[in-house]
Structures are given as structure tokens and as C-alpha cells.
């Protein structure tokens, strides 16, 4: 296994695609970090400008997510090519015919590829870690649970990308076809998100596990067991498909039959995983939770809550309702069924229905309607409906906020000059012997 891992690592290091990824990731992360720190400084009142409320200044939203956002871009548009090469190059050169006869199983070979890719990605995290060190050096605040959660999200994101790319490389005849298939998958998930926005039902459930949507959960400071298990299972499904398609001894009917078998195995796993309810709010400002007193009161409601929403998918109130209330309720209550009853647009040329804007809450046969998407008002409605005594309102916010009015000193030379130079030098040293011979 160690020799397999060594082979894959050497192949990665011999790949110009990997060095290009390393070269580009520094400036990408740097741009995100520098822009974010600058904006954060301005929001914190640097240079005598008006400062935002301190409670609104969270390093997770302000700096960490934008800085690491470059990795989402890289894992979508750059990393798949690195992963595809690791499979396609062996297929194209004939090495795969030798490996298929080697005294190691397909799982070991794919595991070695996966581990090498993961190692490569961790190396690509260096600029991100440099950004964190700089942020700390500026006096910035890091709340470790939300940072580690964000890193877990990016790790799962890259695992999914590996699964898709390796499966595409295994199924396609060449690297170019595999790249097109991988990008097609990505564009497809974007389209799914667009189509499913605010619709509810199966489409919305599917859309909530697209790579971007899954990462968003972690970026919001939430650790959702369903998102973790679904993403990990999807990644595993990609590798399972690769294991079906890589052995050349199988004919097309056999490969299709095994692919169907893999589909039948993974579908119930994914379905079950999507229904896992365990989720933890790891954000420092508890943005995914109600106040502790409200959560304690809501936990007294043990019956299923049905919510019927008469809001169009494009209506910003629906997004507010989703983010500020329904998501939080789903974490606390034993069961929340949401029905989006209005699929019509409230556009210029369309008349809205009579019930448009209403949100109905049904609990134990009783119904109540509210047009509000404001947390205290909706909670009042729910307490009244459930016959639960509302908790006393706590005065003041619990989250202090972490303003920081500093400019990103030294970041530009580090990310735009030193990093590319260091990578270029390392690539030159590593590749020069090979090119000479």
C-alpha cells in the first residue's frame, strides 16, 4: 500500500496540472483574504468611517469564508483536472494494464489515489493556513469550532470532487471527455439549485446536497450529520463507480449492471442519511439557533409541526423564513413538514393569489396564520398554538462581535509574489531533472 501511495504521490508531483493549481491557489486565496480584511476593517470603522454594530462583525463571515472561498472555486474548476489526470494518464499510457495485473485489489489502488489526492489538497491549503496566521498576527479573532467546521466542509467538498472526477475518468475514454463530464456535473448541480430554489419537496432536498449547498451549511457554522454522511456517501459512490468501470475485463452490459447495483446500494443509504436530524450549531454567534430560553421552550413541543408557505420561490421573505426560522425549527422540533403552496411568481404581470404572503402553522389539528418572518412574532404564534408558556425575553445580545480595524499588511507580497515564486522554484527544482533526461 505504501508503494502504491508513493507511486500516486510521485505521479501527482510529476503533473504540471498540480503545480499550476498550487501556483494559482496562492493569489486566489490572497485576493479573497485581502479583500475580506479590507472590508472588515472598513466595517470596523478604520480611517474614521462609520463602524457597523460590533455584533454584526463575525470573522467567520467577514474573513474566513471569503478567504477559503477560493478553495471552492479551485475545487470546482481546477482540482478535477488534477484528479482526472491521476486516472486518465495511466489509462492512456498503458500503465493501467500493468496495474490491473498487480497483486493488489482495486479498493487498495483507488484508496491510494484518493489519499494522494487528499494529501495534494492539504498541501494546497498552505495559503489558507498562511491567511489564518496573518489574521491572528493582525490581532484577529478565531473561534476554533467554527473554523474547524469550515475546514471539514472544505475537506468533504474536495472528497466529493475527487469521487466525481475519478468516476468520470474511469468511465470516459480520455481525459478531455472526463473533464467535460465533471464540469457537466458541476453545471448540472448549479442548474438544480436554481430550479429548486424555494420549491420544497424532493427537488429541494436534492438541491440541498449539491456541493455548493453542502458547503454553505458549514460556512453558516452548522455541522449537520445529514450533510456529512450524504457528502461522504456520494464521494464513496463515485469511487465505487470507478471500481466498476476501471477493470477492463468487464463488458459494457456487465459494467452497466454493476453500476445499477451500486445505485441500488447507495440510494437507500443516501435517502436514510438525508433524514438524519442531528445537527450542531458551532457558530460563535449561534446564528443557527434560537436563544437558549426559546430552545428550551420549543423542546416541550413533541408533536409534528406542519408549515404551509404561500410565498413564491423568488420572494426574499421566503429566504428569510427559511434561514431565520424554518431551519432553526427543524433542528429543535421532532418533525417539521414544510409545504410550499405557492409556486406562482409575484411578478409584474401576474396577479398574486388571495393567500399570497401567508404562512400557516398546523400543530395537533390547530392552525394559526402569520405573515411575519420575524423570529419573535413567529415564536409567539407557535407558543400560542402549542399552549407553551413563552420564556421571558433576555435583554441584549449574547454575541459581542469582533471588530478589527487593520489593513492586511504584508499579505499582498506574500500571496501575489512570494507564494508564486516559491511554487515556481519548487516546480522547477522538481521537474528539471526529469526534463533533462
Amino acid at each position, binding site marked *: 500500500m505504501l508503494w502504491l501511495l508513493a507511486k500516486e504521490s510521485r*505521479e501527482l508531483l510529476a503533473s504540471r496540472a498540480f503545480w499550476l493549481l498550487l501556483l494559482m491557489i496562492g493569489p486566489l486565496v490572497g485576493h479573497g483574504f485581502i479583500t475580506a480584511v479590507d472590508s472588515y476593517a472598513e466595517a470596523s470603522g478604520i480611517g474614521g468611517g462609520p463602524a457597523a454594530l460590533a455584533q454584526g462583525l463575525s470573522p467567520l463571515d467577514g474573513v474566513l469564508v471569503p478567504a477559503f472561498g477560493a478553495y471552492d472555486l479551485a475545487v470546482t474548476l481546477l482540482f478535477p483536472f488534477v484528479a482526472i489526470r491521476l486516472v486518465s494518464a495511466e489509462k492512456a*499510457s498503458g500503465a493501467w494494464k500493468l496495474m*490491473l495485473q498487480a497483486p493488489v485489489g482495486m479498493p487498495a489502488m483507488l484508496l491510494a489515489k484518493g489519499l494522494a489526492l487528499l494529501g495534494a489538497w492539504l498541501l494546497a491549503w498552505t495559503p489558507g493556513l498562511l491567511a489564518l496566521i496573518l489574521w491572528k498576527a493582525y490581532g484577529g479573532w478565531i473561534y476554533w469550532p467554527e473554523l474547524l467546521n469550515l475546514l471539514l466542509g472544505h475537506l468533504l467538498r474536495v472528497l466529493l470532487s475527487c469521487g466525481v472526477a475519478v468516476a468520470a475518468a474511469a468511465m470516459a475514454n480520455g481525459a478531455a471527455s472526463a473533464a467535460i463530464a465533471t464540469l457537466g456535473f458541476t453545471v448540472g448541480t448549479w442548474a438544480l439549485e436554481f430550479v429548486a430554489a424555494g420549491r420544497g419537496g424532493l427537488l429541494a432536498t436534492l438541491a440541498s446536497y449539491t456541493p455548493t449547498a453542502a458547503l454553505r451549511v458549514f460556512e453558516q457554522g452548522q455541522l449537520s450529520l445529514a450533510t456529512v454522511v450524504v457528502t461522504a456517501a456520494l464521494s464513496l459512490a463515485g469511487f465505487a463507480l470507478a471500481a466498476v468501470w476501471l477493470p477492463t*475485463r468487464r463488458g459494457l452490459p456487465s459494467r452497466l449492471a454493476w453500476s445499477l447495483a451500486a445505485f441500488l446500494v447507495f440510494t437507500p443509504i443516501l435517502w436514510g442519511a438525508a433524514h438524519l436530524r442531528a445537527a450542531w450549531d458551532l457558530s460563535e454567534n449561534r446564528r443557527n439557533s434560537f436563544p437558549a430560553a426559546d430552545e428550551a421552550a420549543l423542546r416541550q413541543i413533541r408533536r409534528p409541526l406542519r408549515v404551509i408557505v404561500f410565498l413564491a420561490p423568488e420572494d426574499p421573505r421566503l429566504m428569510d423564513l427559511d434561514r431565520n426560522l424554518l431551519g432553526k425549527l427543524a433542528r429543535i422540533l421532532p418533525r417539521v413538514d414544510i409545504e410550499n403552496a405557492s409556486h406562482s411568481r409575484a411578478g409584474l404581470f401576474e396577479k398574486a393569489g388571495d393567500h399570497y404572503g401567508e404562512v400557516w402553522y398546523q400543530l395537533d389539528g390547530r392552525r394559526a396564520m402569520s405573515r411575519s418572518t420575524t423570529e419573535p412574532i413567529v415564536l409567539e404564534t407557535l407558543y400560542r398554538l402549542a399552549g407553551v408558556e413563552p420564556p421571558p425575553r433576555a435583554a441584549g445580545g449574547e454575541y459581542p462581535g469582533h471588530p478589527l480595524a487593520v489593513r492586511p499588511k504584508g499579505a499582498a507580497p506574500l500571496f501575489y509574489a512570494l507564494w508564486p515564486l516559491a511554487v515556481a522554484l519548487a516546480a522547477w527544482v522538481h521537474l528539471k531533472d526529469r526534463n533533462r533526461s
Partner: protein
Amino acid sequence: MLLAARGISKHFGRNAVLQDASVTARDHEVLGLIGPNGSGKTTLFECLAGLIPTDSGEVEVRGRAVAPARRKQFLFYLPDGIRPWADQSVAWTMRFFAALYARSPDEVAALARALQLEPLLRARIGSLSKGEAKRALLALGLLTPHPLLLLDEPFDGLDFRQTREVMTLLRTVPAAGRTLFLSIHQLTDAARVCDRLVLLSKGRVAGEGTLAELRTRAGLNEGGLEEVFLALT
């Protein structure tokens, strides 16, 4: 009998590449698979190695049917015209194969010496000439421990002197307990190195045996492999 393949057929679309091909390989022999380009030699090797699915036929090793997925336990097939791990050095690639098949560094060094690879050990596989790459590939094949080694065109790309040296090296392999099955399209090379021959033409096996046996079967009193091949196909 080390290996017996019976009734191997393979189509690519409408093109019948192998039709009911049967071959046998004995212990400690050099068996040649002889046929012109396009006769189905590579396809037969890939079918025997279990690398591609066959339409029909079965393969037995020492009298027992062996499924395609398990054939790598008994035989190793070295394809022609491949450049595996083009960015890696010859030395590393040999060490990698030695590690896969539990071969000692001494065995690696001896093979590198025998195949005159020592000056090329630091070179990338992708930078080698055709003949150099062929010798590096042969080294990989010879590092495997399987009782049966299938070599596709082992002399292709080698010059006259190298061909003779590789032939001498390959002739020592059966003595070490292995069987070689060589696909060769150059009839003169085949006649010099092989103990027995399988003649393949248009996907069909036209004959199998020693040169003398094939000559008898062709009804010839004299003549070389070329005359025998022409008479039988």
C-alpha cells in the same frame, strides 16, 4: 499442461478478431504466437490475461478453469507499445515493480545489467527511445514471478545485436522454471527463440507444435517457418 485455452472468440463490433482459438502452453518452454499484423495476437493475449472480456471460450491453468479476475495469479501479460509512468525514472519504476512482486534489489540490479539498462536508470521512461523503452518494459515483465509470462512483440524496436542479447536472456527464463509465450510477427526471430509455435491467421489458430511438427502437418519435407506459415494459412 500449464495453460489450455479453448474456443476463445472475440468480436469488436462486427469484426471477428478471434474465432474459436485454442492454444496450450507447457511448463518450461518458450512458446511463440506467430502471425502477421492484425491477426489477433494482442487480442488473444489480452483475452488470456483476462484484461478484456471474451465472447466465448475458457482458460484452464493446470487443468482447472480460471476466471478472468483470477488469472493474474498465474500469468502476467506485458503489452507492446506502452509507456507506463512516463514521468518516472527507469530505476524507480523497476523498484516499484520489485516492491509489488517482492523481488530483491539484487534481482533488480541483475536484470538492469542483463538488459543493459544501467546507463538509463536515471532517465524518465518517457524520454527513452523505442528500443530502450522495450528493454525497460522487459525488465518489468521479468521482475514478475508468475509461472507464465506473455510478452507482446518482445523484439520490436530492438536492433539486431540487442535482439540477439534479449533472445539469449529469454532463453534462460524456462530454465528458471517459467514458461514464456511470445507474440512475434518476425518469423526469423520466432524460429530462433521458440520451442513450439502457434500460428495465428485472421483470428484462427492454423497450427500448433514444433517447427518439425508443423512442417509435417503442412506436408512439407523441408523449408523454414515462412514456408510452413504460408502453407498452413
